[in-house]
């Protein structure tokens, strides 16, 4: 089953998990599986229209899904889907 890596800012919405196993054949399905396990992550990831929020970067392994097929990008069981937030902390 593909693994989803949860960034620090989303962990409070995922019961503190750093990684979640989530089934799906595409990046979109994997993220939907994450949302059904942890419903509080929905509004952080998706707009009300169901699109991925613009401020959320999603990587399949080391590649940005924006340069692949977006949410339609197919996912293998051994893949890692990473949700990447911008962080501004420097102090």
């Amino acid at each position, binding site marked *: 089953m593909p693994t989803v890596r949860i960034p620090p800012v989303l962990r409070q919405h995922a019961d503190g998990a750093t990684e979640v196993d989530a089934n799906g054949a595409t990046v979109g399905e994997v993220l939907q599986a994450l949302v059904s396990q942890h419903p509080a992550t929905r509004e952080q990831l998706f707009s009300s229209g169901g699109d991925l929020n613009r401020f959320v970067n999603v990587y399949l392994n080391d590649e940005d899904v924006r340069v692949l097929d977006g949410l339609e990008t197919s996912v293998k069981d051994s893949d890692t889907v990473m949700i*990447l937030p911008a962080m*501004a*902390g420097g102090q």
Partner: protein
Amino acid sequence: MTPDTEVFVVQEITPNEAYEELQSSDAILIDTREPYEYVESHIDGANLIPPAMVADNIAEKVPDKSARVLVSCRSGVRSVTAAEVMMSMGYEDVASVAGGILEWQEQGLPVITSSALTAEQRDRYSRHTLLPEVGVDGQVKLLEAKVLLLGAGGLGAPTALYLAAAGIGKIGLVDDDIVDSSNLQRQVIHKTSTVGQSKTSSAREAIESLNPDVEVVEYNFRLDAGNILDVIGEYDIIVDGADNFPTRYLLNDASVRLKKPVVSASILSFDGQISTFMPYEGPCYRCLYPTPPPPELAPSCSENGVLGVMAGVMGLLQANEVMKLVLGIGEPLIGRLLLYEALGTRFTELKVRRDPACPICGPGAADVAESEMGQFPDYDAFCGGHVGS
């Protein structure tokens, strides 16, 4: 074949004889000392081959075994050994310079000294100049480099200390904050005795006591659209350790306009990110993050906490990027985002591409008219008014 037991009698010549030969013939001079000795002073035209490397490297410098080769060292001992090695390899016409460069200088013959560095600097930076990738030339580049640090806090503190130690010639510090005792858990450039002082002056004291070669410039204010171009225009490289999104986007847009590389890092709790944004060569910050997250998804360290050593790890990765950019060596993190997760001690590298639709550095981005320079959007409003501290 030459039997192993053969004894070679090495011809020795005086420095004056060697000098005459080098002036009037095609004789090749091999200097068999360590790199740090060579850097300090050497004879013009001398080819450095450290003692341990003679057998391996001589053929590269002197392919013709019948060539006339003079060998020198510091005092004339290692040069005899090197000459014996060369003769055992079949070199036919080798001579050692008696007394080495010490006697050479004693006789008033000319040498090249590393005049670019003072004696004190040669000593201070010797561990740099020993590295072939740095050398005296590289150290001179460091001493001439101008680096601006955005933030003299968690990330800026270790970055500033190591860049100062490395002899970066001019370090600008932008911070409008004062030192608080809660900073000292990670902001190692500040001290208990400087609590209450401005961070820029506290950092300046630390840098100046570490390395008097460094010129420190304090910018005791926040960067805004009205001042950013003037400030960053003075510098070769910008190090972004800002604690808020408005400054990060403002810096990105200004640095792309002025084509200044930005080494950008951020830290939160046990996580860190770093990348190097080289305008037009690689992606910019907006290619990676087109829009900032809403405030509830952008907690700051003051709200969430941060493991103190995270600042050191990520700050020094930034310093390392600066060193590579100044020296022109290695592979900077251009087009790569490196993530560090401290609890698992896990590094993850992600690819970052230039966004063809990037409004700042994409091909569709309009050329900025001179009159528009310095005109930036209202970032505080754009970023939902979230300004961390």
